[in-house]
């Protein structure tokens, strides 16, 4: 093994920068991709103007809800200023929360609560309007429920009066406390993972992106298999102290070890950069993921004689694995129809924290068959 390591170092000495580039690429590309995508997403928020003419509690809550919307860039303005910006197409649309908003809601008048202004360039008006209307709908529903509750003591002869404000405030508190939209339900005796309390820092899956790029870099780093099995070199290497297969496997193990160290460093830096946490069992999933994709790249490279065709095929396969792994785009609909799809990508297994995936077992079996298969040559 020492000899193999020394000979590999001779190769790496020639390719030091290229090797370093491919080893840090998953981490670098993930950081760049997610930061750029998040910035881009920030830039592509819909600019809307909000004019608040009512200072009631309900109006303030509505403003907060609109301000917190992930896809809106809200400017709180005066009507005149807002309309000028709308004319200049700096804003997509303008919403004015009219004076007496809460009073109108309270008295169950649902007209003229909000006035909206649009221009001929208000491309996102319809979805924005729907989003704003949904908040108003919630307030109106809450008010209607309060009126119904206020009538209950009279109907049932109970001597207890609740005010409209008390009921609405309590219902808001209950809604926030129970957080019904984020509650997870489970069957009896089945444990489910606790949902994270804090919202994810990015809409992109950091580990999904990292895993997809790690697959690509592994393919590109394993191009040595293609280069070193060119016929003349294969003949030469076959006559050495160790068999050609053994030469390939030992070099593969060296690559595996180096890549795993790079994974640990990359992961550490990603955890630090994205302020994420990792569980101990994910480390085992990462080891399994690394072995799986290295075996895949190794066995895949064995089938090629020309580096160019290998690179093209590797790139295509990486995109395919990224897509069916659900790392790049959600494929829930597809996996419901074709559940076996998820077994084909090592990325799915890694993201699910699986240590022993079906793909790992299949690749290991193929590897064993290849290694112990009797060749028609002496080599």
């Amino acid at each position: 093994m020492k000899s193999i390591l020394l000979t590999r170092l001779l190769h790496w000495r020639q390719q030091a920068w290229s090797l370093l580039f491919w080893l840090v690429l998953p981490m670098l590309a993930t950081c760049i991709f997610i930061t750029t995508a998040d910035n881009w997403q920030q830039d592509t928020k819909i600019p809307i103007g909000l004019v608040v003419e009512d200072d009631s509690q309900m109006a303030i809550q509505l403003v907060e809800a609109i301000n917190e919307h992930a896809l809106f860039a809200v400017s709180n303005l005066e009507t005149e200023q807002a309309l000028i910006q709308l004319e200049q197409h700096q804003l997509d649309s303008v919403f004015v929360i009219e004076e007496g908003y809460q009073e109108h809601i309270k008295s169950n008048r649902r007209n003229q609560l909000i006035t909206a202004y649009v221009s001929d360039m208000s491309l996102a008006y319809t979805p924005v309007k729907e989003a704003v209307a949904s908040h108003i709908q919630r307030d109106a529903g809450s008010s209607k429920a309060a009126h119904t509750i206020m009538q209950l003591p009279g109907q049932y002869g109970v001597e207890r009066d609740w005010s409209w404000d008390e009921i609405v405030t309590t219902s808001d508190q209950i809604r926030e406390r129970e957080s019904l939209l984020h509650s997870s339900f489970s069957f009896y005796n089945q444990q489910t993972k606790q949902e994270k309390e804090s919202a994810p820092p990015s809409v992109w899956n950091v580990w999904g992106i990292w895993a997809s790029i790690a697959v690509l870099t592994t393919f590109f780093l394993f191009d040595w298999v293609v280069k070193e099995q060119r016929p003349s070199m294969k003949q030469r290497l076959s006559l050495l102290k160790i068999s050609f297969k053994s030469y390939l496997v030992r070099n593969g193990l060296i690559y595996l070890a180096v890549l795993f160290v790079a994974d640990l460093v990359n992961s550490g830096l990603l955890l630090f950069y994205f302020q994420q946490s990792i569980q101990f069992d994910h480390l085992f999933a990462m080891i399994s993921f690394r072995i799986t994709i290295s075996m895949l790249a190794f066995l895949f490279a064995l089938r090629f004689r020309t580096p160019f065709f290998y690179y093209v095929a590797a790139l295509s396969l990486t995109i395919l694995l990224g897509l069916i792994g659900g790392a790049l785009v959600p494929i829930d609909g597809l996996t419901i129809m074709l559940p076996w799809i998820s077994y084909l990508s090592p990325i799915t297994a890694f993201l699910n924290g699986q240590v022993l995936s079906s793909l790992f077992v299949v690749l290991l079996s193929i590897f064993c068959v290849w290694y112990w298969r009797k060749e028609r040559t002496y080599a």
Partner: protein
Amino acid sequence: MLKVESLTKQYGSKQVLADVSFQVNPGDIVGLVGENGAGKSTLLTILATLIQPEQGMITYHDLAYKTDQRKLRQKIGYVPQNIAIWEEFSVEENMVFFEQLSWGKKSREQLRQLCLDMKLDQWKEKAQSLSGGMKRKLNLAISLIHEPELLLLDEPTVGIDLKSRKEIGTYLQQLAKQQGKTIIYTSHDMEEIISLCDYVYCIGNDPFYKELLKEKGQHIHVL
């Protein structure tokens, strides 16, 4: 002594070698000639233990090809037709790389001397910047690191200048006559074959080679 008996090899339905038998004594330089596709390279790769024949028996001294492959590989030096070196390595790095994986251990000084014996003196030069002749010499030198007894050379001088060709020829003669190495050599250059080889085996039944060698007064054996 290398002894080949009733050797048969075919690729699919194409018969490449049919009932080939011959023997080579230690210290002999034997030429293999024949038209393209006659089976010269196939024969050499079989003798190098790289592919298996369908039928036949090969022995080298008391070692049988079927059972003693590992021991045989220690005694065989094979020079492939296409140059098999690392282009991005220097001459030194190429020699060190193959020495590390070779059957025999040699110091850097010994490796350098081996190159110098073949008039390859660009020790620190990158292989990609060497001339065709120098690359061929390096290709040969790598095969000699473990001091093989049986040297199989598949067109080792193809495409190189006359001077380098002469230097390689002289070196091979030294190996055979002074160190008793057995050399089997394929080439399309009849002048080279005649000047270098003790005798010639012609693979295939092409009368062209027989006539040509007869004209030159070279004894020829048809396989």
